[in-house]
């Protein structure tokens, strides 16, 4: 499964970069989201994946008795997901406003900051 995971990560990275390289702002945001997902999965994979062993201590004990998934990468990714949502929502609104002002979604046409174009 790890190999499949690595391939998925590679596909997400490739797609993310490809979309970032496009001229449309909307595609740029989609690219960033895909890249972010890829990065999350990469951290997840590098923390080693294990099935059926969530890092939750059983009710009747004070410590783990069996193997458990590493909680640290999970905590990191959780933070990353939430923060990237902040970034995405801000970016989406920004694109919307920018479009209202300059009437385009093409990065190459947005070359003026303070004039009517």
């Amino acid at each position: 499964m790890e190999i499949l995971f690595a391939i998925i990560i590679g596909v997400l990275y490739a797609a993310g970069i490809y979309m970032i390289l496009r001229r449309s702002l909307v595609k740029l945001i989609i690219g960033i989201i895909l890249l972010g997902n890829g990065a999350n999965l990469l951290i997840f994979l590098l923390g080693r994946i294990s099935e059926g062993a969530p890092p939750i201590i059983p009710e009747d004990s004070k410590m783990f008795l069996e193997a458990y998934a590493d909680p640290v990468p999970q905590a990191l990714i959780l933070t990353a997901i939430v923060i990237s949502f902040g970034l995405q929502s801000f970016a989406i609104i920004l694109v919307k406003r920018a479009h209202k002002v300059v009437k385009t979604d093409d990065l190459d046409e947005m070359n003026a900051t303070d004039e009517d174009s």
Partner: protein
Amino acid sequence: MLIAVLLGFLFALFLVFVGKFFKGKLAVISALVPLALFIYFASFIPQISKGEVISQTHNWVPSFGVNLGFTLDGLSLLFSLMITGIGFLVFAYTASYLKGHKYLDRFYAYLSVFMGAMLGLVLSDNIISMFVFWELTSISSFFLIGFNNTSEASRKSALTALGITGFGGFSLLAGALLLGNMSGTYNIAEMLTMREALVDHQYYVLAVIFIFGAAFTKSAQFPFHFWLPGAMKAPTPVSTYLHSATMVKAGIYLLMRFTPVLGDTPTWNTTLTIIGAITMLYSAIHTLFRTDLKGVLAYSTISALGILVFLIGLGGQAAFLAAAVFIIVHALYKATLFLVTGIIDHQAGTRDVTQLAGLKKMMMPVFIAGFLAAISSAGIPPSIGFLGKELTYEASIHSTGIIILIAVAIVLTKILLLYAGFVAGIKPFTGKLPEKFSEVKMPGPLMWVPPILLAVLGILFGVFPALIESSLVKPVVTALGVDASDIHLALWHGFNTVLVLSLITIGVGILLYFILKPSVKLENKIGKLEPISPEAILKRISYYFTVLSRFWTNVFQNGYLRNYVTTVILFLVILVGYIFFGNSRLVIDHNQLSEITAYEMVVSVILVLGVFYTVFTKSRLAAVAAMGVVGLAICLLFVFYSAPDLAMTQFSIDTLTVILFVLVLYRLPKYLTLSDYKMRIRDGILSLAFGGLICVLALQVLAEPQNSEIGDFYAKNAYIEAHGRNVVNVILVDFRGTDTLIEISVLAIAAIGVFGLLKLRLKSSDRAN
């Protein structure tokens, strides 16, 4: 001594707050600062002349071996006295020269920072702190030279001076670090004890080159000399201070300071002699072609510096003695001549030698000062200049090697310097007074007393050389590492070769003065050689450098996001790929890998298909929906692999993002494919290379052993310390609670931003429609 060094800086700081009170009549009070310092340093003369060395160390950055160590020996005492003594006169002179100037307080602040930096430079025992003070002199002199900041020429010459001396500072830093590495210490006194090891070190030549780079730029040696004439754009008190006793002598000081450490080798001696000889002759000849008084003085200063470098290069007791005396001689007469020039400029309004004449009628005391300085510069007895010249000749003709050539060069230089001194000190005062100068008035005593004081000192020391013999000159020679006990200064040396040379110099020089009149025609002639002068060549180099950097910037900073991203990714792929595939082999241990179940396979296929659909669809809505599918597939992967919290977060965030996208973006323009076919192929290849690289890297990392120490710590303590069973949650809200709090504030800021953008009412002019 720390206080003495810092006093200049403290006074400048003090002026920042109360400067406005120092602009009027009180300005002259600031001269008390250098005067106090002068008295302080003069009080050390008895101790130093007995051969004592006073040192004090204050810890600064002890972990790097950088201390504020100050050492007062003969050499630094002589320089300190010149800095504070001439400083005192310049401070007083300025009060009258720049009377009522709008920024007089600023001027004093720059001047006192400069003085403090110079003191720190000559007293520093630690080469790193010396470098710091060295840079401070460059920076403060930049402000002084560019003081008339409304004039473009003034700003330009300040920049040139900063550029050249800044380059020298860089060289000094390199030399300091190299010497520190070679000797294991930054302390100059300690370096002195390991001279043998340093001189035989494989990097010796490199270290010497760095030190020379610093000294030659600061002391305006050929081919770095051109910043000095340019610096004449500064107000005259600045020129006086910088070019007679301080700034330009810093390079000389550096060479002298390092003579006992690095000197007396063929590399050291030959280079210094040659560069010194070229500089002294080259700029002495230049003085013939100048009509601006300050121009004459500037080139004669460079020439004098050349003589000093030349003498240091000769080495040995005679040369060091000559250098020590000549430093005093030059400081006294050059400061006088500059001050006299300043008075002429201030009162008559011009510095053009071809026009100035007959001014002695109005300003007799100034003429006396100029005359005395001129004979000192000419080396006519009984001035101290005569003594200096005799010693210089003595040192040159006793040296081995190409004696004739050296003797001719130095005699020629001296003849030309005599001419320069006469032009600056005598010519403006003699002859028939032109009509337009008949109204010229005598300046106030604050202006004429300083030059006359210096000029009289020049004669006094000449008549009674015992005054400076054991107090100043001998300790300097001792500090240079040579025995000085048998030195005896006297004006009369008896009839010998040196006296004959002296007589020739004086005779030919005076003849030259009466035959050759400075004229604009001559000045224009030398102007034709300008295109091949070092200055022009350097300016051309810097011009083409800006052309190159503009081209470079235009290529790399082209303003297209995708080009930046492409460059970064391409670089990353090539570099990481090269190292990765060059060094390691991909090992996959199939036993460690987990099985693929059927439902995992299905989810993965859906995920990959979703990604492809997102990328290739022509509809924006479809792209957003497919992106949602990708997010949900990832969510399922989290569920399979024991991350329930992640799955929940991913699920809600993914849903929210899709909703936001759809709600906000449905009215955007048509979802177009803007790039052409070729571009997409190129980007596709790049992206695939990058994705492939990440994929391989991930597999490679999996082959490495894992360190789960941190995870174990949290797992062990989650319930015991924080009383929570869900370890991920405990980490977020308890162990790393502050981080989470900050994260929440980031989200809050983003939310405010979103809210602001939504509510923003654009002015009608901002709208496109």
